[in-house]
């Protein structure tokens, strides 16, 4: 075989090399740039971030942002599930700002040892005095942050003592079962730079909180690079953070329509999509390049009825309703199989949940027998508020309406915004409605505190039972694993489920939907993603 090179071959090869170099001269820097930004996570979120105030509750998207830009003293540790995906470990609390914690024997004192040299994004020290100031600010502002701290045994800032630059002591007003884990939540646990915020106080804004609505000094692993209101936010790693992330940038793009979020994920224009409709989840599990992980969650759905008027407060009427609910149909049609049957007056998948006190299945015969013992007029009709656009609420109520129609009970569904419905619920002006709740701390006592005590804001139905409520109250202060607490929670559920205090429907899954290369997702009890833990492979 001849190896001689002709003039023509030489000319072509030379031109090829020159041309290739010229093109590569342009392309190589681009490739290098692309490689450099390989760890850019593009996320489709459902709504704007509203406020940077961490103490206010502004929905899932906002809470996700808080977890990125504000650190907390502690957080639940992650553990692998059988399928290799990660979830929180309810028994292990690990430090973020804190490197060690000590809980006293009587569980009324918690001592935090902080990382030395921890800094806010502006370089100021994030030490024990700064953490105390942060707590004090949340307490003084009287928002949900203050509620979270109060329920953890910290009603006032004078219960917080700075022992030295890195040691803080919390003296709780009572021992609380969830006293430690609550410091991992975004409302009261988010560490803010209180001194810097106060620098922006004005006569119109004496606490600087209006400034904090739209600006902040970050303490978490990411800082805000660019925020175009209503459109997007980009974040880059906080150079002072002690929580390294493999991501170089996170772009949170606001895509309000759920079907649009789904298709941009399918096409690969985003890496992660939040709040995907449950009805789309089964389909997405079959899409190539898309990864769906479902986690049993603590978010439950119940059908509530008022205790303040007849016939709703009649035990036979309540039992009739409990027998008439099409439980399986709700699971398959409304939740598309992405939920579990719920059988108690408290959330499932949390410590203390028991389901042996709920005997009800769908049985219209038994429902009729119960209803026969109640004096209700012919053509009895109930108006039920329904949150417009909430598929679980709307579809569940339609199916329940059909089922109750077979008993001669007519439901009129009144669609309204979620805000309007919640206002009516809190004012206790609703006879019957579907409601949901997710306890941020996975503990039944915590659930009881917010829902079943006489002054709980979410005790929409005016439930009152001195024995049950006393048991609930007692459980709050006992150690999570104490046998006497277990007994109280058991009796509590026995009483309320026995009275059909509410009708448990289903417990939905948390579904994390992302492109295949996204790794490291951890499911937390509050359902809030921690994007800083993700990476692209």
């Amino acid at each position, binding site marked *: 075989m001849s190896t001689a090179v002709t003039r023509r071959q030489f000319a072509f090869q030379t031109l090829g090399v020159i041309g290739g170099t010229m093109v590569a001269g342009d392309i190589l820097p681009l490739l290098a740039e692309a490689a450099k930004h390989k760890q850019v996570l593009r996320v489709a979120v459902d709504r704007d971030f509203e*406020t940077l105030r961490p103490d206010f509750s502004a929905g899932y998207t906002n809470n996700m942002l808080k977890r990125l830009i504000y650190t907390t003293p502690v957080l639940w540790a992650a553990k692998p599930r059988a399928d290799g995906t990660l979830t929180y470990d309810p028994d292990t609390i690990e430090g973020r700002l804190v490197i060690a914690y000590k809980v006293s024997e009587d569980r009324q004192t918690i001592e935090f040892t902080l990382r030395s040299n921890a800094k806010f994004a502006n370089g100021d020290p994030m030490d024990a005095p700064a953490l105390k100031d942060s707590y004090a600010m949340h307490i003084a502002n009287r928002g949900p942050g*203050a509620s*979270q701290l109060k329920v953890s045994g910290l009603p006032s800032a004078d219960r917080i003592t700075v022992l030295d630059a890195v040691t803080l002591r919390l003296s709780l007003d009572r021992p609380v079962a969830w006293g430690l884990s609550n410091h991992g939540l975004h409302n009261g646990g988010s560490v803010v730079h209180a001194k810097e915020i106060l620098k922006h106080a004005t006569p119109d804004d004496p606490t600087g909180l209006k400034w904090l609505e739209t600006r902040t000094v970050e303490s978490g692993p990411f800082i805000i690079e660019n925020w175009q*209101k*209503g459109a*997007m936010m980009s974040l880059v790693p906080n150079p002072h953070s002690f929580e390294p992330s493999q991501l170089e940038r996170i772009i949170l793009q606001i*895509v309000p329509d759920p079907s649009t979020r789904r298709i941009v994920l399918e096409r690969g224009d985003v890496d992660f999509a939040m709040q995907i409709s449950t009805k789309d989840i089964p389909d997405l599990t079959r899409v190539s390049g898309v990864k769906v992980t479902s986690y049993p969650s603590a978010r439950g759905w119940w059908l509530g009825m008022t205790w303040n008027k007849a016939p709703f407060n009649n035990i036979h009427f309540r039992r009739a309703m409990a027998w008439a609910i099409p439980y399986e149909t709700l699971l398959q049609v409304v939740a598309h199989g992405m939920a579990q049957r719920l059988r108690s007056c408290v959330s499932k998948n949390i410590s203390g949940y028991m389901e042996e006190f709920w005997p009800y299945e769908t049985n219209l015969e038994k429902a009729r027998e119960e209803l026969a013992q109640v004096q209700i007029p012919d053509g009895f009709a109930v108006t039920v508020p329904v949150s417009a656009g909430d598929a679980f609420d709307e579809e569940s109520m339609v199916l329940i309406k059909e089922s109750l129609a077979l008993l001669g009970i007519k439901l009129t569904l009144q669609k309204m915004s979620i*805000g*309007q419905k919640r206002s009516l619920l809190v004012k206790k002006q609703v006879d019957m409605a579907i409601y949901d709740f997710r306890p941020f701390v996975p503990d039944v006592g915590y659930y009881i505190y917010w829902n079943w005590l006489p002054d709980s804001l*979410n005790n929409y139905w005016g439930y009152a039972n001195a024995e049950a409520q006393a048991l609930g109250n007692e459980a709050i202060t006992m150690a999570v694993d104490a046998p006497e607490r277990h007994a109280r929670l058991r009796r509590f559920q026995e009483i309320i489920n026995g009275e059909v205090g509410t009708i448990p429907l289903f417990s939905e899954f948390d579904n994390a939907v992302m492109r295949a290369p996204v790794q490291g997702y951890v499911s937390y009890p509050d359902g809030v993603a921690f994007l800083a833990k993700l990476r692209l492979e």
Partner: protein
Amino acid sequence: MGFSSHAARRLMLIVPTLLGGSSLIFVLTMLIPGDPALMRLGNFATAEQLQSLRQEMGLTKPPYERYVIYLSGLLRGDMGRSWRTGNLVLEDLLARLPMSLELGFCSMLLAIAVGIPAGVQGAAHNDGLVAYGGKVYGILGVAMPIFWGGLVLVYVFYFKLGIAPPPTGRIDMLVVPPRHITGSYLLDSLLTGDLDVLVSSAAHLVLPVITLAFVTGASIARMTYTSMRKVLASQFILVGHAYGVSPRAIIYKFALKNALMPVVTLIGLQVGFLIGGVVLVEMVFSLPGIGRYAVESLLVNDFAPVQGFVLLVLVVYLLVNLVVDLLYSVLNPQVRHG
């Protein structure tokens, strides 16, 4: 009555309309059940906190006092504060208005550019294929819901064919927005010479503009067709034909000008429809305009932005109709004399 006195009279009428409108808006939003403080606090709050926040937000004041505060604020240009965004409503609206104006203006231009020729051609060639196509378009455009049309376009051109950009906002995620001058990405990228942004923002506007223009243009086409048919049957058109004036000149020089008056009126009225459509299109295409701002605020009982949005729409609507009225009087002098 001269043109200037006619214009002044029409302008003066705007003031009481605005006053009445703003009062009506206030009353209507007061009637919406819902507690903003409750939404602000979320599920993890106590009854005392709720009461305290209600006082802080001024929700415990009697309605007449709140109305006085609202009205005196409006007179100072203060539309209140959104609890959801933490900003003054006026600031929020002004930040989002350029997006909506850009979308509305481009849509209206396209609707006029398509609707008038379609109507004219339909009327001029009554039995031809063009006329038939124009009629079908007129019916389809009016019957098709905007929301559905947008979703279909996204599905076909983005999801299936992959030739449209993702419906995720005004520009590509990795493109840096232009320096803020007017707030319109098209204009700002032109003014700053930023070609990347110009291309990206124009590409992101194509489907939303087509969605809105398709429906708006259909109404314009139908009105142009009807009006042109009427004018083409007039005596003076017959005379024109008899005198041997070319068909082209008859249609474009004589008939169209006379047929335009109802079309101009319709275009003015379509502005209201366009604003309604903008709300839906902004949701489908993730565009951060005033419509989406209002809808999202309404869902969480943030009423000040809703009041601000409706008032802004009222102002725009009144101004556009003023311009249409004045234009009408230019096209037909009998209007200002009559």
